[in-house]
Each structure stands twice: as C-alpha cells, then as structure tokens.
C-alpha cells in the first residue's frame, strides 16, 4: 500500500492472482480511485498483449460455423411499439391510479410470495435480517444442477442490492471445505456472494453479497471450496443458473 493506493497489489489483481480478501479490498479501492483505475487499465493492456507472444495456432476450420449456428438461435427480444399508443381521455385519467393499483398488487403479491417462501423454505429459521430482506421487492433465481442430485437453491435478489440464499439437499461437506456462491461475470473475475455450510439436513439460509451491477453477470453458481473460501471458483459447478437472466 503506497499513499493509500494498493499499487503493490494492482498487478496481481489484474492477473487474477490475489487471494479473496485482498481481491475484495483492491476491487473496492479501484472502484473509487481514478489513479488506480488508470494504472489497472495499463496492466490489463500488458496482460492483453501477453498471448501475442505465443506461437500462433490457427483455430479449427469448423469452429466459426458452430459459433454462427449458436448465434443464430432466436433470442427473446422485447416487442416495441411501432407508434405511440393514443389512449381515450377517460383512460388517460384512469391510467395513473391503475398503474398505482397494479404496483400495489405486485408489491402485495411479492410480499405474500416471500412470506410463503420464508414459511416453506427448508433449513434453519431465517433471522430477522433475512426475513426483512425477503420482503423487499426483487426477483428469485432458481439454481439447479447435476453436481448433487436432488439439491437446489433459490436466490432472492432485492432491487436495492441485498439478497439471500436458501439451499436444500446439499451434502454436508468434510472439515476444511465450504460451499461458495459466485456471480460469474463477463470480462472480469467472478464475484463471491457468500460462503456457507449446510445443516445435518443439507439446508442453509444465508445472506448474499450482490455485486453492484448485475449487467455483466453471465451465470450464478455454487462450488465446493477450501474452508477459507477462494478468490476465484476452483471447484466444479454443483448448482447453477445458466443463463441466469
């Protein structure tokens, strides 16, 4: 650390070779420091140039066709109106109360759903903090997978950035191991959301650290890691949501 800047760790941060705690600390600093952000951009330039030194190997000729075939699969896109919709006068007057009523109904549904999830969810009873989280507006992501048959998890992501995770059916890990939740991102290292163990019934309720932005999150996964947690995922995906959006 020099003059408050983690210049000594920046290169390792760019290489993705910091341990988890250091990584989190440097990331938090870089987000608010123009100097370190600029230096980090230069280190990323260095790293981006490294592969150029390798003896080039032409890619398989069929690779592009496979990419094109997958890229052509239809994606669900939002339908856009071709022109503004003109409402009758009475409907114009009524639309804001209608919108308010719809929002209220949505909020009521959300709170009801979350309470029901809390009531039905397996595992230790959630504490007041988790229960409060569950009442905020947001969405639920279901994680499934073949890593442990019968296991599943739900993540509730609140719109204001909080979140919690409910897990069932996971095997109890041996001493020295922990489960770890990850937000895998495009172009940057995966962000750790939580480390947790499960009770004797394979259940857990934990609070989740949600990244500041979810725009670049490509997948949400749970892996098996050393007890202290890892800086990047090292185990196989036990549960995941792919693609998660």
């Amino acid at each position, binding site marked *: 650390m020099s003059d408050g800047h983690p210049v000594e760790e920046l290169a390792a941060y760019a290489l993705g070779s910091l341990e988890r705690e250091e990584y989190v600390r440097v990331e938090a600093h870089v987000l608010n420091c123009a100097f370190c952000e600029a230096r980090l951009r230069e280190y990323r330039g260095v790293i981006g*140039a490294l*592969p*150029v030194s390798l003896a*080039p190997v032409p*890619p398989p000729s069929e690779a592009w066709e496979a990419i094109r075939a997958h890229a052509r699969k239809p994606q669900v896109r939002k339908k856009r109106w071709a022109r503004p919709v003109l409402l009758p006068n009475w409907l114009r007057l009524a639309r804001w109360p209608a919108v308010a009523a719809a929002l209220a109904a949505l909020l009521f549904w959300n709170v009801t759903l979350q309470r029901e999830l809390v009531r039905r969810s397996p595992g230790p009873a959630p504490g007041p903090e988790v229960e409060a989280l569950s009442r905020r507006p947001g969405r639920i992501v279901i994680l499934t997978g073949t890593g442990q048959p019968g296991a599943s998890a739900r993540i509730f992501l609140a719109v204001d950035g909080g979140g919690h995770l409910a897990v069932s059916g996971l095997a109890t890990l041996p001493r020295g191991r922990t489960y770890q939740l990850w937000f895998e991102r495009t172009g940057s290292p995966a962000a750790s959301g939580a480390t947790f163990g499960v009770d004797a019934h394979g259940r857990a309720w934990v609070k989740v650290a949600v990244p500041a932005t979810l725009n670049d999150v490509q997948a949400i996964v749970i892996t098996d890691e050393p007890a202290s947690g890892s800086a*990047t995922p090292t185990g196989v995906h036990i549960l995941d949501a792919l693609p998660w959006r």
Partner: protein
Amino acid sequence: MKRGPSADPRAEEPVDPELLRRMRLGDETALEALYDRYGGLVFTLALRIVGDPELAREVLQDTFLRSWNGRETYDPGRGRVPWWLMGIARNRAVDLLRSRPHQARLREQEPLPPGTPAGELRHTGASDTVVLRQTVIEALDGLSGSQREAIELAYYGGLTQVEIARHLGQPLGTIKSRIREGMERLRTRLETLIKPTGAGRHHE
C-alpha cells in the same frame, strides 16, 4: 473468408468499436469480422492454458458466443475490445483448467503447444503482427526467468500468488515482488502499445 491465426491488438481502433456497434444492432457479419481478427489469438491463448485442442475449441466458441450475447455489456472504459475478449477467454479457460485438477497443476510446466512459425502468418497486416509479436517477446525476454515464471503461472496457470509460492517452494513475499516488478517492467516496455488512445473511452 480468411481465418487468420492472430491479429494486432493495436489496430483495433476505430474498427473494433464499429464492429461492436454493428453487433449491438444484431449484425452477424460484424461478429464474423471480429472472429476473423481475434479468433486465432483467442484459440492460441486457450490452447496454451488448457493444452487440449478440443477444450481450446470449446473456449474459443464460448468466448465469441459470450461476446455476442454480452455485446451490450462491453465497457470501453475498462479496456479495448481484444483485452475484453482475452479476459473472457482466459477466465473460461482457467475455469475449465480448475475443473480438471488432475490435469491442471502440471500444465504450466509443460512446453508450449506446437504452433505455426511466425513467418507463416498469412493474412492482412501479418507483417505488423510479426513486429508486434517480436515487441512482446522482447519485453518478456527483458524479465528475469523467475519474474516471467511467476507471471506465466498466474496468467496461464490460473494460480494465485499463494499457490505459486507453494508450487515453487518460495516465500510468498518473494512471489509478490516478482509479479509486481515483472509486470511493472512489462508496463514500461510496452508503454506505447498499451497507452490508451482516447477513442472509445468515456470516463476520463
């Protein structure tokens, strides 16, 4: 259409931002052009990390599909397009590497996979690419062997500094110094290559 083995990351502007703009509009030919520019480089990197042509092809395909599906999320402020692509490819390759621990830990000590000699590059701008490659090789040659080893274990091996120290049987502080000093030396030697040109950057 040619499928060049590598491209010059310096030559991306303004071509690459324009390709990304067209990709956002759903122009598939822009993705193909991006693949032509960087497909070889991505495959070479992936092969160096995972050491298996089939897995490397998986990384290559996944990288360009992710770039297509995530074309709205590319942030020019975080770096140029090839760096973005290399970041996706490297992370994906390291994920694969780490999911195969029985293969992974020895990979970084193995020789580089056989490749096409630089003199056989056949695509537009090949001479520029050869010069660029020579520049990067000379910069790497300017490192001490131990600095280069630590940086390559981190980048191609996907190891943390703690893991590198354990792997090499060296104190953690020594590994940190090697990486820091080596990267700083590379940053200085490659300054003209990595300095931002201003185009495509939006928060300075």
